[in-house]
């Protein structure tokens, strides 16, 4: 049976997170997951809408979800922030008949919230299953010590997201093990990366990024894995500034978990847009012989 989902890439995946979009499509295709992009989707309103108007923050994602409902499919959302907003909209509509009525009036469409909204990580790890993922691995990620970074949005608020443990989520860690890597035990899994602060108030935002990088390195990680384009952006692009805070050069490559899967499945650096990163990940991957067939890797040869 092929798995089929309505796909909501969100704005980031067409701009700063092209790597995420590209690798997602490659990996989904590889695993036989059909992603049907939602026709005429709109912005989920993540960064600004909920500060402006609660109704707007629910109505924006609800419109997209209503469109997805026409496709009759569960929705797969790669971006953690989009997932967060969509799940919030779904829960509010499910919980209150009044809210449902209001929303339907505002978006001028029927949204019943009968389909599930799932984060892409959930879809790939739990719906497709780690067994199938393991079968597809032909370049195990041996030697990669990974700090799985979930960020603050993927698991919070727990009553709405209903996805993994709120303080110590393990989904990505289990994925890393399935791909042949080694997840490290660290303390910043669900800390905030500073999100918008790193642009608007760098004095607040940059130290937050620094703390995450520092803790990952301290616990022996040689790379970071994310499921959120904003986290990725912050950790990858502002690593230099973060390092400058304590005269350090972290040089910790950051990956989307889909890129990681693609790597293990045998896709090339270019197919996974690894060349678009600020911190060059290829150096680490070369060091660990990831691109070579396991049998011809240095420690084997």
């Amino acid at each position, binding site marked *: 049976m092929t798995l089929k989902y309505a796909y909501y890439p969100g704005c980031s995946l067409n701009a700063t997170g092209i790597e995420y979009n590209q690798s997602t499509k490659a990996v989904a295709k590889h695993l036989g997951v059909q992603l049907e992009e939602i026709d005429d989707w709109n912005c989920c309103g993540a960064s600004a809408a909920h500060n402006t108007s609660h109704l707007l923050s629910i109505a924006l994602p609800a419109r997209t979800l209503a469109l997805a409902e026409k496709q009759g499919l569960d929705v797969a959302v790669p971006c953690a922030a989009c997932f967060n907003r969509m799940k919030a909209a779904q829960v509010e509509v499910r919980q209150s008949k009044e809210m449902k009525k209001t929303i339907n009036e505002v978006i001028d469409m029927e949204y019943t919230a009968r389909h599930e909204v799932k984060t892409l990580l959930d879809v790939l790890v739990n719906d497709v299953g780690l067994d199938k993922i393991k079968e597809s691995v032909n370049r195990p990620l041996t030697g990669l010590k990974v700090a799985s970074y979930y960020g603050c949005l993927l698991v919070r608020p727990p009553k709405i997201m209903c996805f993994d443990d709120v303080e110590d989520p393990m989904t990505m860690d289990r994925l890393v093990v399935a791909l042949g890597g080694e997840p490290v035990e660290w303390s910043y899994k669900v800390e905030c990366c500073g999100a918008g602060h790193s642009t608007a108030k760098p004095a607040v935002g940059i130290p937050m990024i620094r703390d995450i990088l520092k*803790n990952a390195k301290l616990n022996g990680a040689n790379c970071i894995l994310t499921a959120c384009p904003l986290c990725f952006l912050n950790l990858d692009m502002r690593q230099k500034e973060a390092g400058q805070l304590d005269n350090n050069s972290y040089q910790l490559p950051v990956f989307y978990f889909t890129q990681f899967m693609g790597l293990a499945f045998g896709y090339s650096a270019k197919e996974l847009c690894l060349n678009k990163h600020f911190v060059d990940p290829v150096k680490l991957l070369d060091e660990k012989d990831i691109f070579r067939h396991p049998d011809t890797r240095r420690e084997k040869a």
Partner: protein
Amino acid sequence: MKRIGVFVCHCGSNIAAVVDVKKVAEEAKSMLGVVYSTDYQYMCSEPGQDVIIKAVKEHNLNRVVVAACSPRLHEPTFRKTLENAGLNPYYVEMANLREHCSWVHPNDKEGATLKSIDLVRKAVAKVNKTVALFPGEIPVEKRCLVIGGGIAGMQTAIDVADMGYEVIILEREATIGGKMAILDKTFPTMDCSACICTPKMVDAAQHPNIKLYTLSELESVGGYVGNFEVTIRKKARYVDMVKCTGCGICEAKCPKKVESEFDYGMGKRPCIYKPFPQAVPNKPMIDPENCRKLKENKCGVCAKVCPTDAVNFEDKDELVTERFGAIVMATGYELYDWKKDFGEYGYGKYPDVIDGLQFERLVNASGPTMGKIKRPSDGEIPQDIVIIKCVGSRSTEKGKTYCSKICCMYTAKHATQILEKNPNANVYIFYMDVRTPGKMYDEFYMRAKEGYGATYLRGQVSKIYQEGKKLIVKAEDTLVGKPVEVKADMVILATAAAAVKDSSEIAQTVGFSYDKDGFFTEAHPKLRPIETNTAGVFLAGTCQGPKDIPETVSQATAAAAKVGALFSKDKMATSPMISYVDEGLCSGCGLCIPVCPYKAIELITIKERVHGGEVERQVANVNAGLCQGCGPCTVACRSGAINLRGFTNQQILAEVDAACQ
């Protein structure tokens, strides 16, 4: 001819502020059989009772209705009043104008008054059908079972034993002593816990009237007050208590060491062991979970070295059934298992984040570190120590909603202990509130703060994580309004005191109620705080809710006094308000048997003469000792053969008729 008197109580303003009591009394006069009616401010007071007694005599009353509060509170009071007036005490009926009316309809005075009149009418109708009842008598078995051998259980046992009655202490651990034996010092006097606890343990063990059943669990409880029949499982100890001299060679020679439960994982113990050196009884047991001989039939060193041949690998559990007149619950508490809920504190992953009882072992002179406060991870002396209060207490999100009561004091004690041993240490205590009511308690807290210099910071800790050898403790100081970060060497969590895990099963086995948190419920929070709602079962100590040692000991002695009062009579009066079977109507179908929660009904065979011949048939029979008068049997009976005295079908129907008028 029934001559009924109606007495309407104001209950101060509790009833009179809502209900027009004068009107109720006036209306009552027109009800069937009522010859006298009046109101009074406090019917339950002495002058109030005199009003009733006088009226009974003057108006020759033979039935009484008191329209006042809940019969739960004052029915026994008014029964005594009637007795004093020379009437059968069961000739009184109560109409509940307070809980059932004025308290629930405070904003509808008119409606409440009408409802009160209806309630009185029902009571009058019922009392019209009331017949005299006479209590029965049951013998009292003057032996007391104390479940739990902690400080509460020991104190109760010693006090009851001193009264001259036989007591058995049932303890599931291998030693008595409970949590108090684990503690190092006790607040606010800082006297050594063991120095006051271990002599008590010896007192209990050596008392001629006390028998100890350690390593034993409750299997089942039958019977009723004065006559409980209790089955106890004495678990296999694998050591012959008679032969063993407690020399300790076996413990020294046992090759396998595992984590010690008594030390809360802070130290190790062999597989044949005493929980701690001062254990009572001072004889070892074998831990069947870990013993290699019992699991794999290898080793057996202890048996080889034992000079008295006391080790017995063939030992089996043993069931004993004994009779008791009273049961005292003293099952204590345990710490709330924070590890499953507190991810922000690391789910128990960091070795240097410990709980209060673990700290007690660390700081205890007879503990695994000989009283040196060393952190578990590397044995170093911690310099910066953070204590977090209310971990799992006072929380609506996770853990328990209640205040655990003892933590404010024991964190102040821990701070004092740390700073006494290492005056240069830094102790930070994160708190929500500091609550230290009690004799010399606040002084103790102030001394920890101002005398010893513990730093109190108001605010809950949001996160703890490991960074190298340090634990980073992040919190907000809500008094300053700023985030704080402490680099600590060790963190002590003052976790909530919770009911023991199987407290609900224990309560069900013995047969009384417990609250949502698993603590045992007292019969009345103010007037009957020692009793349960099951006659003959009493409470002592933290099984009822968090308490400190002085409070626990006071309650334990109070429970002993209750047991003494029960045992002071040879026979006990029983409530006559129980079920009875009309054998003429009973068809012997047995439907009443499974619905009886007290197993009080059984089928018996009776002989009857029918048409000159004799036939045998089965009918239901109620055991007067077991029946609690709850009434499901009367509902289950298809032929209406079972009736409940005091609540007969006639009486209930009279009430219904009156209510429908």
